Every structure is written in structure tokens, then in C-alpha cells.
């Protein structure tokens, strides 16, 4: 007798748990997906290990921010520009996406954790295009050469 009632209770409990799980599943569709940040293909490893980065990236960025802004210390290792350039995620058009795109590396976790960051209100959220950068360096080389010739001309005068 006791065994039967125990079985009934177990059955009831199972039904309740099952229903709850079903509900959760239905809800999941409306929720922000669990982030699955893409590891960059360009670099073998990050500037620190993943667990450390998860917990401390904001502290490092904050520290670097003040040093760079006020003291002109521009080491690459913990610079935001360096993060952005490694962790660039390409969109449908093959270009890196900006922060307003949900696929953006920073965005995936921050949307999930409901932490609003304002880095990209000012900072570029994607690396500068390479072709453009090449053009720019070619441009400045030209500029330098013409500056040099101008200088030489002036020296002769």
C-alpha cells in the first residue's frame, strides 16, 4: 500500500517537473540566446586565459584607458583597439560588424548579461578596413616624399 502511494507521488512529481521544463523551453525562444562568442581565427590565444578574461577584462580596459588617455602609454596588449581588431566578427557582407549588430563579439555576452557598455559610443567597434589602411600608408608615404623634395628644394634655395 505504502509502495503504491510512493509511486503515485513520484509520478505526480515527474509530471510537475516535466511541465515546468516544457514551460522553460517555450520561454527560451523569447529570451536572449546563451552567448557563444566566436574565437578569432587570426590569433592563437588571447592576452590572458579565458577564465581570467571573463572576469577581469573590464578592469584591464579601465586601467589601460586612464594610462593611455592621461600618460600617453600606448602598449598594445590590453588596448581596446587590439581587442576589437582580434575579435572582429564578419557580417553578411564580409565586413566586420559594428556594435549595433547583435553578432558583435562584445554584444553577444553583454546582451545576455544585460550589461550596457558605452565604449562604442565613442570608440570604433570594428577595425579599420585593411585596404583603406594600406591606402592611407601609401598616401602618407607619398606625402612624406613630397615633403622631402619640398625640403630639399628649400635647402637649395
Amino acid at each position, binding site marked *: 500500500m505504502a509502495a503504491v502511494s510512493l509511486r503515485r507521488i513520484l509520478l505526480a512529481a515527474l509530471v510537475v517537473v516535466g511541465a515546468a521544463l516544457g514551460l522553460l523551453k517555450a520561454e527560451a525562444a523569447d529570451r536572449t540566446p546563451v552567448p557563444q562568442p566566436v574565437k578569432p581565427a587570426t590569433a592563437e590565444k588571447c592576452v590572458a586565459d579565458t577564465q581570467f578574461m571573463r572576469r577581469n577584462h573590464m578592469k584591464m580596459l579601465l586601467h589601460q584607458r586612464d594610462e593611455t588617455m592621461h600618460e600617453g602609454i600606448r602598449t598594445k596588449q590590453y588596448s581596446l583597439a587590439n581587442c576589437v581588431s582580434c575579435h572582429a566578427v564578419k557580417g553578411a557582407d564580409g565586413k566586420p560588424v559594428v556594435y549595433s549588430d547583435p553578432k558583435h563579439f562584445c554584444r553577444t555576452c553583454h546582451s545576455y548579461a544585460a550589461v550596457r557598455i558605452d565604449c562604442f559610443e565613442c570608440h570604433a567597434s570594428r577595425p579599420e578596413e585593411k585596404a583603406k589602411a594600406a591606402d592611407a600608408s601609401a598616401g602618407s608615404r607619398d606625402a612624406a616624399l613630397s*615633403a622631402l623634395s619640398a625640403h630639399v628644394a628649400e635647402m637649395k634655395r
Partner: protein
Amino acid sequence: MSDGGNDMIAPDRRALLKSAVGLATTTIAPGVTLYAFGVAEVGAKPADQAVTSAKRWGLLIDINKCPPGCDKCVTACSEENGWKSSGHPETDAQWIRKVTLRDPRTGVKREAPAMCQHCASPPCVDVCPTGASFKRADGIVLVDKHICIGCRYCMMACPYKARSFVHEEHDDQKVEAPRGKGTVESCTFCVTRVDAGRIPACVEACAAKAGAAMTFGDLNDPASDVSKALASGASAQIRADLGLDPGVRYRNL
């Protein structure tokens, strides 16, 4: 006095500093040649070292070499720092602009570029309630946009109208020139370039495409291009009466 840091550095220390940054320099055409070969023009500082007051960056603009109607410096700045007209001239960015000076009696017109004058005693820094407006040890006056609350008090305080407020949201900033809605901005002397040993974009463009009217360098170093140019003749400060000791000087104004 102006260029005050000069007196404070003992000559031997200055020589030491010079030799530290000067290994890559050559004696011929120190400015332009070095840049052309991709080496520091104004002395690159190692990326992991803080700026010091041993240097004070300054600029001399010779108005006689500034062609009328030319805006190469303005376009270069705009391209380098990613600002452009929003179609509302009254609120547009004011990193650098050409101003026309006209003598009403004779009608003679002169043109000159005007930007943040990087004062030694900057009024914008005095009035900033949050400390966002600050002067770096090497004399470059900047806005720390992380702590700028956009009150625009500095814009009121600046006698050169050198600052402007960002009214629109942006998502196409340059990596090296962050700028965003709700903060004040102004000429930075292209601070990332300067830290890397390069010269500001306007100076580079003026030398390459216009009259080479601008000379940039370290005011504390008597051997720098700008110090030599300043020593070679008279120059003027805009609103010298205010005693702000600007880092930007003009010649033939």
C-alpha cells in the same frame, strides 16, 4: 615665462634625453628626412613610457606661406580624425578651421588656420567640473571623454572657440580618434601620431600639398625645428594679453 620647462632641465640631462631619442636621427634635414624613412620625426617615445614635461609640443604657423582659399590642413584633419560637416554649420565640429582676417580700413585680407592653442594655462581646464578637460605633461590639452559630462563649460571658457560638442551619434569613428555624442572635442595635436613620433596630420598635409606654413616640434628643445624657427624671428600669440602661453604661435599675423 613661456617655454618655462626649459630652464628647469639641466643641459646634461637634456643632452641625455636627446641622445636617448636621437639614435635614429640623422643630421641632414632632421624633420622631413626621418619621417620619409618611416622613423620618428619628432622623437618617438617607447609605447610603455609615460609622457613627461621634458617636452612641450608646439606649432608655429607662418601666415605668409598660407595660401588663400587653401584648406588642405582642414581636410587632412577631417580625414585623420573622422569628423565631417553634419549639415548644421552652427553645431559642426571645430577641430581646425580657416579664419579670414580683414583690415576694414585697407581691405587687406589674411587667412590663418585656427585650432586649440594648447595653452600652458588653459582656461578650459580651469573651469572643467569633472577633470575631463586636462593638460598632459607634454603640454597637449585634451578632453577625457570617459569623464566628460558634456556641460560645455570649457567651450564657453576657451577664448579661441576651439572646442565643439558632438551632437549626433556616430558609429564610424576612426580607431585612433574616438568621438561620441554628448562629449566635447577639439584638436588633439594628433596625439596618437605624436606619441608614435609622427607629426600632426595638418602639418604633414601642409608640408606636402600646400605652402609648408606649419612647423611642429618640441618647444623645450632648442634644437627642434619649431624652436629654431621661433628663434629666427618674431612670432605672435593670439590674445597674448590673456597670458595663457599658447603652444601655437603665428608669424606675420
